[in-house]
């Protein structure tokens, strides 16, 4: 048996990137801006979106693509806000994929009414690791990190914190009950991703949600996107 070395010299994620670019081209054709929203499980992504849709985003027509390993609990929560919600379940893979990749998003695009929306929010699977690696065709990446998670998370998951254009710090209504050093969190975010925009809010009480709503409106504006 003779062995030959075949030169590849290719980024292992190139295949994903190519599909992400095709998604992006489809979004651009329909003039839809896309935000990839990521976080650890339970950080409050869906609660934040509920808080956003309770008041709405003005004239900005918004749709949501919900990524979950299983079930449609999150999509059900958002359904009554009269926002088109499309569910993707990732449990077809090996034990259920822990993130959305470009191909999963591509396979769901037929069900997303791109011609009826200006902004698509992709709520990724709750996970601070894999979603950071896989582009899906988004214009901007945002993450939610909650004050129940520990101030050291930026140092433990730098890939995620570095890939985002916005870090939303959620659950600040709980601060009086926690031994949480908010300054330390901000310092760590700055150390890992200097200059990244961050905002403090409570999706539960609504405090500060206006700031995120404004950010989404800017993200949905093709002229003034934050990314």
């Amino acid at each position, binding site marked *: 048996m003779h062995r030959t070395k075949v030169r*590849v010299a290719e980024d292992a994620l190139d295949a994903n990137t190519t599909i992400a670019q095709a998604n992006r081209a489809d979004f651009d054709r329909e003039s839809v801006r896309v935000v990839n929203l990521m976080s650890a499980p339970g950080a409050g992504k869906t609660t934040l979106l509920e808080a956003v849709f309770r008041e709405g985003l003005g004239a900005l027509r918004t749709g949501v693509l919900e990524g979950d390993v299983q079930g449609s609990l999150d999509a059900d929560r958002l359904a009554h806000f009269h926002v088109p919600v499309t569910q993707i379940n990732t449990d077809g893979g090996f034990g259920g994929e822990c993130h959305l990749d470009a191909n999963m998003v591509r396979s769901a695009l037929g069900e997303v009414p791109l011609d009826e929306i200006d902004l698509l929010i992709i709520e990724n699977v709750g996970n601070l690791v894999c979603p950071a690696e896989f582009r899906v065709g988004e214009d901007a990446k945002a993450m939610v990190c909650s004050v129940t998670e520990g101030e050291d998370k*930026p140092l433990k998951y730098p890939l995620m914190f570095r890939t985002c254009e916005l870090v939303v710090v959620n659950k600040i209504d709980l601060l009086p009950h926690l031994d949480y050093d908010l300054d330390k969190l901000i310092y760590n975010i700055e150390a890992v991703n200097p200059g990244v925009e961050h905002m403090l809010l409570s999706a539960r009480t609504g405090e500060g949600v206006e700031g995120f709503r404004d950010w989404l409106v800017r993200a949905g504006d093709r002229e003034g996107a934050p990314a």
Partner: protein
Amino acid sequence: MHELSLSSAILETALRHAGGKKVGAVELTVGALRQVVPASLTFYFEIVSRGTVCEGARLELHTVDARVRCNGCDDEWTLDDPIFRCSSCEASDVEVITGNEFLVESIDVEEEACTAPR
């Protein structure tokens, strides 16, 4: 879990270049900023490659340090922790020189055509 996703991406890349031939080894370059655990990557690759021409292939993993440069004072150093702030001048305009790599460099294929399913 991170390594499972990445090992699947490595497998897809290797299969695309293997042309249906049996693969004996896959050579990789992985930067420190990718937070990959080599033993974990090897473990998952062995699982995801089962039943393909890459089954049993050896992963040869070369790691690359995270090197960064301060655009303020041109100081250059190797990152031990993910702190992207210059320790000399405190500037935060720090550029990554190496450490983001996640490359399949080459594969070793066996000349005899293989009948294993892809």
